Each structure stands twice: as structure tokens, then as C-alpha cells.
């Protein structure tokens, strides 16, 4: 009798092992579950942070919601899988999240070594430095000997080392795990300088009790193209994430907003009609419903709206579009055509 149970148990274990080895079919998994799980940060004001009601809001979260709108038809069916800079790829690769929308820099090592798929850039960023105004520092070249707070497991950690080495300067790295801990250490004076992507600096500065007492130095020491990532081995899912991002950019380019999207369905412009699913079957080719892009714009908005709602000049972060303007406006945003 006992033996029988053991045998049954081990057979069950065996079956379990075999099924968990399966990887492909993220789309089916998400649709079956009815919820999209996005790997997000543990909280960066304006990019990903829970509001007073515990609902996740922000620039990166909105792209997660856009993905949910496309895949599930409902932007609210998301679950935030919070992760530190260090755990994010492990969480994605272990299948805890379906897609990563978490201010993550695209690099060679991450693409090739960590085995991620990147799908384009949703924010062009660069690493900067923030110091107290009363230190009287005007340039990053004056930071020799300073204590610098950095988030561990980030590209900033590596750029910082390169920058100080190249310029023959020394520094004391104070490594911390999350943006919040970094802010505490910086506030208490454990470090002179806080360094991260310029967007993160704007976010951190806005959360300080007296933002005007701090200044972001003019030097931008790196290229930080931030974008979404997925696991290797699921091309269909990769395509979906790529084109969700492209849809938001193309919508801005074509002037489609969450306000006018219903009217635009009958637009005379064939690309608008293809995008919104009035003509053609692009959604079905992706394995989604034909109105996938319509749902994104209707429920979340185009790229410009996502930007302005969360981090634009009228928000506490007050970030100008800069490099993140459309290519037609002197920025770098450029989506391949919907054809």
C-alpha cells in the first residue's frame, strides 16, 4: 500500500518536471491565466509606483498595461512582479514574469550573455550625477574622491567605474539594492553623489523633501537605451511585444490619440485603418484580435500621451521630450511602418 503511494507520487513528480520544462506558448499561457505578469521595479516615481489605492502607475506600467490591452483586451489585467536591479532577469528567465518593462538598458551582454530578447527602445536615457547644491560642484570632473551611491546590478555601476578610471579619478562606491535605499543614503549624507539614469535622477530628485537644494550635473556619461525584454525561445511573443511598442509610437506619428481613436477608425489614411484593424488582418497574424492596437490607444494612449501623463513637463518629474520626441520633431523615436 505504502509502496503504491510512493510510486504514484514519484510518477506525479515526473509529470510535473516534464511540464515545467515547457517554455514556448507565452501568449496561450497569458490568455489562459487572464492576467499579464510584468517584471517591474520596486518603485521609481513616475515610472512604476503603486498609487494610494495600491494600483501600479507610471510610464513603464503603462506599457505593461498597453501589452495587456493588446493581448487580453483589458489594460487593467496586469500583475506587477516587482524586482530589484539584480533579480529582474532571473525572474524573467525563470518564468515569474511574461515580459519585462522595467527601465532596463539594452546591452550586448544582456542580449547575448543573459539571453534576453530586446524589442526596441521606449526611453532614450543616459547616466547622470546628482549632488547637493551647497557642495559647489559644477561638473562631474570635480568629483575626485567622492562617495557615490549606486544601485547594484545595473549598467550604471559599470559606466561609473569606466568613467572614473578613464578620467583618472578615485571614488568610494556605496552599493545599494533599490532606488529608495539609495535616496535614504544620499539624503543622510552617506554619499556625496547619487548616480543613475537621468530619468531616474529626475524621479529621485522629485521625491526629495527639498528638490531645489539638489542639482543634476550637466555631464551625461553613457548611452542608456531602455526597452522591454522577453525570454529566448518564443518568437510569437517577441513579435507581440515589439509591435505593441511600435503601435504606440506609430499612433503618435499618425495623430491617433485616446480621444479621437473612435473617429480615426474611419480615417481615410490606409495606415491608420491597418493599425486600428479597420482594414487587413494584422492583429490575427500576431495571434491577437484585430482591434489590438485600437485597444492599446483607447485604454492607455499613444506614446506621447503615456509620456506626458507620467513623466512629462506637467508632472512632478518635469522631463522634456528631448531624445524621446518623434524623429519628425528632432528626437530618436522611429517606428517601422505598419504595412
Amino acid at each position, binding site marked *: 500500500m505504502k*509502496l503504491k503511494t*510512493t510510486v504514484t507520487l*514519484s510518477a506525479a*513528480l*515526473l509529470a510535473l*518536471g516534464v511540464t*515545467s*520544462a515547457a*517554455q514556448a506558448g507565452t501568449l496561450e499561457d497569458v490568455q489562459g491565466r487572464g492576467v499579464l505578469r510584468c517584471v517591474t521595479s520596486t518603485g521609481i516615481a513616475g515610472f512604476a509606483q503603486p498609487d494610494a489605492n495600491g494600483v501600479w502607475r507610471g510610464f513603464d506600467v503603462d506599457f505593461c498595461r498597453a501589452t495587456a490591452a493588446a493581448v487580453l483586451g483589458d489594460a487593467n489585467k496586469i500583475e506587477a512582479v516587482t524586482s530589484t*536591479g*539584480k533579480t529582474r*532577469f*532571473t525572474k524573467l*528567465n525563470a518564468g515569474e514574469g511574461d515580459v519585462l518593462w522595467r527601465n532596463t538598458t539594452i546591452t550586448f*551582454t*544582456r542580449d547575448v*550573455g*543573459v*539571453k534576453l530578447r530586446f524589442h526596441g527602445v521606449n526611453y532614450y536615457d543616459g547616466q547622470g550625477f546628482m549632488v547637493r547644491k551647497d*557642495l559647489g560642484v559644477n561638473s562631474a570632473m570635480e*568629483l*575626485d*574622491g*567622492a*562617495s557615490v551611491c549606486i544601485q*547594484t*546590478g545595473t549598467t550604471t*555601476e*559599470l559606466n*561609473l*567605474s*569606466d568613467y572614473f*578610471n578613464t578620467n583618472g579619478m578615485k*571614488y*568610494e*562606491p*556605496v*552599493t*545599494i*539594492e533599490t532606488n529608495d535605499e539609495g535616496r*535614504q*543614503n544620499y539624503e*543622510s*549624507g*552617506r554619499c*556625496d553623489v547619487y548616480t543613475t539614469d537621468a530619468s531616474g535622477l529626475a524621479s529621485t530628485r522629485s521625491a526629495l523633501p527639498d528638490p531645489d537644494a539638489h542639482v543634476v550635473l550637466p555631464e551625461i556619461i553613457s548611452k542608456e537605451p531602455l526597452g522591454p525584454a522577453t*525570454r*529566448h*525561445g518564443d518568437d510569437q511573443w517577441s513579435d507581440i511585444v515589439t509591435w505593441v511598442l511600435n503601435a504606440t509610437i506609430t499612433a503618435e506619428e499618425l495623430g491617433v490619440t485616446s480621444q479621437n481613436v473612435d473617429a480615426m477608425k474611419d480615417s481615410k489614411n490606409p495606415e491608420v485603418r491597418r493599425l486600428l484593424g479597420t482594414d487587413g488582418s494584422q492583429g490575427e497574424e500576431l495571434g491577437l484580435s484585430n482591434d489590438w492596437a485600437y485597444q492599446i490607444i483607447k485604454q492607455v494612449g499613444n506614446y506621447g500621451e503615456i509620456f506626458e501623463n507620467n513623466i512629462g513637463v506637467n508632472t512632478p518629474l518635469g522631463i522634456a521630450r528631448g531624445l524621446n520626441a518623434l524623429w519628425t520633431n528632432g528626437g530618436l523615436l522611429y517606428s517601422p511602418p505598419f504595412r
Partner: protein
Amino acid sequence: MKDNSSQASNPLTRLWRNQESRGVIIQIITITLLFAIIALIGRNVVINLAALDKEFSFTFLTWPAAYDIGFSPFLEYTSQSTHLKAAAVGLLNTLLVAITGCIFASILGFTLGILRLSKNWLVNRIAYTFVEFMRNVPVLIHILAIYSLIITLMPPVKKALDLGGGQFFISNRGFYMPSPVFEPGAWMVGVAMIVAILSVFLFRRWAKKVQDNTGKIYPVFWISIGIIFGLTGIVFIAAGMPLSWDVPALKGFNFKGGMAIKPEFLALWLALSYYTACFIAEIVRAGILAVSHGQTEASKALGLRNNRVLQLVVIPQALRIIIPPLSSQYLNLTKNSSLAIAIGYMDITATLGGISLMQTGKEMETMILVMGVYLLISLCISGYMNWFNRRIKLTER
């Protein structure tokens, strides 16, 4: 009845009914299942790694680490060093906090344990309250609390507190003090110290022999101290004091020169030490209480003075009870040191198991290495404590 049992015709059934053979059968089945499960896990790992296009290899250890480490007191480390060296820096930092932590925890633990036994009501209650409060709050909370206290309560570096003559400073970036600089001729002092320590060993052996033979007791402790400090001191002066001090001074953003104890190390070391000390205190108290009072009375009846009673009768017997649970406290402290990651102290979990893992994407490999390292450290501590335990255990003649 007898007939009935041997009638079980099937040989398998007969094997099963025999207690001895049944044991063997069950063991074979268990081992087979165990290996099957291990093989299954292995197979799963291989399949999953293949699905992610990852390969299993340790070559990443020879790649440049490319990140800096803020605290590397023993090794020269730059961001051009390899991941292996970063791991070594982390390992040394782990060992540093583990060893200094065990030492401080033992001192504090023995003191607290003896205070707990004090007949003075106030002392007894204070020790009791301290022990009960500290050991019933998770150690991670202690670490975070101490760290926050240090970085928020201590003055910022520009207003560092001068503790005396511009030599010692306290700030929320650490505790700064002068560091010794050895000048030519310092080797003679080193040699003198080694000679002094060796002669103390010889003297102690000789003193013990004299005591065994004649019963004459020398003040061994004070003579030892005298030899070590006297000899070293004389040579130091004779060699023209070949030692100067590098005094820390505030230059630019930070103190330059001297030595610094960083707040990350201080917080981790303090929290681990006093947390573990509370457990050690209870172990010590139990050990001393377990030596029957009759032993003390008997030795006093023999005319031994109080400290000789403790030294010769109570402590040797108490140690036998204290050592085994003490070893597990040392193991706990060492393993708890991995909580360093919460405050950014660069131990092996933070370097190899943290940043290296992250920058190379080699989760499996780094985690296997980190686990192996902790296992090795723990086995060494266990081995040493077992040796020590055998040495002090009751010798039966």
C-alpha cells in the same frame, strides 16, 4: 500456525515478510527513488537551460569584473580584476566579519551569561532584559536598525566629530583612525615579538612542569605579558622606533589617509555579534549551572581561592557542555553574515552571488559556487570546534 506462515508460496512475499530482507528492499527502493529525483532535477535543468540558450560553464570567472568594490582591505582590487578576484575579495570580507563577529560575540556572550547568574538583582535583570529583547527580534532588523542609526545619527563627514587631537574622527561615513606605517628596521620588532611569543610558550610548559613536580605556582599570566611587551618594547626603542602614523585628514569630499571602519561593516559586525552573543549567554549560563554546586563546595573545602575554583573546577567542566551548542552559534553567525547584502557590505553573496551573477547572467554557476563556499567555511568551523571539543572532553584514565 507455523505451518501457515511458511506456506506463503510466493518467494517475493516470503522475502517481504522477513524483517531483514524487507529492510534491504526498502533501502534499495529509497536510494533508487532518490537518484531518480536527482536525475530528474538535473534533466530539468539541462532542458530549461537549453530552452533559454544558456550553457553551463565557469569560464566567466576569468572575465574582467568591470565593477568596483568599496571595501577591500586585504586585496588590491580594481574594476579590471577578474570575477574570480571579486569573489576572493567577497570571501575575505565574509571571513573578516565572521571571525571578528565570533570573537566579539564570545566575549560579550560570556560576559552576559555570567551577569545573568549575578546575585545582584539589578545586574541580573538588566542582562536578562537585554538578552530576551535582542534575541527575539530578527537579526536582519537589527542590522538595518544599526545601519540607519549610524548613517542618520552620526555627523556628516564635513562635520566629523574629532575624538581627540585630530587623530580619531567619527562620521556617518565611518570611524577614522591613524594607520601604522612601518619604516626600515620594523622587521626587527616583528622578529622580537615572534621570539617573545615562542619563549612564552616554552616558559608556560616549564612552569607547568614545575607545578606538577613541586606544586609551586608562578604568576604565569603576568610574566607572559611582561615577556611579550618587555622584549618587543626594548627592541622597538633600540631600533629607533621604526614606526610612524598615517593620520586621517579631511581633503575634498572624504578623509584621506589613516584607516577607516566603514558603517556597513560596523553595522553588520555589531548586529551579528550582539544578536549571537545573546544565544551564547544562555548557553554559558546553562553550562555553568550544570556544574553541580557540590563541586564548588568541595574545592573550597580543599582551600582553593575563588578564582582558582572557577579556573580549575567550574569552567573546564562547564566548557564541555558549552562547546557543542557554541559551535552551532558560530555557524549561525557565519551564515547570517550573508545578510550583509541588505546594507551593501561587499561579502561573497554581494560580489559573486550578486553583482557578478547579475552582470554575467550565470545564476546557476554563481549560486553553486556561493553555496559551496559557505559549506566549506561551515565545515571548517565544525571541524575546528569538534577538534577543540575532543581536546577538552573528560579524559578517562
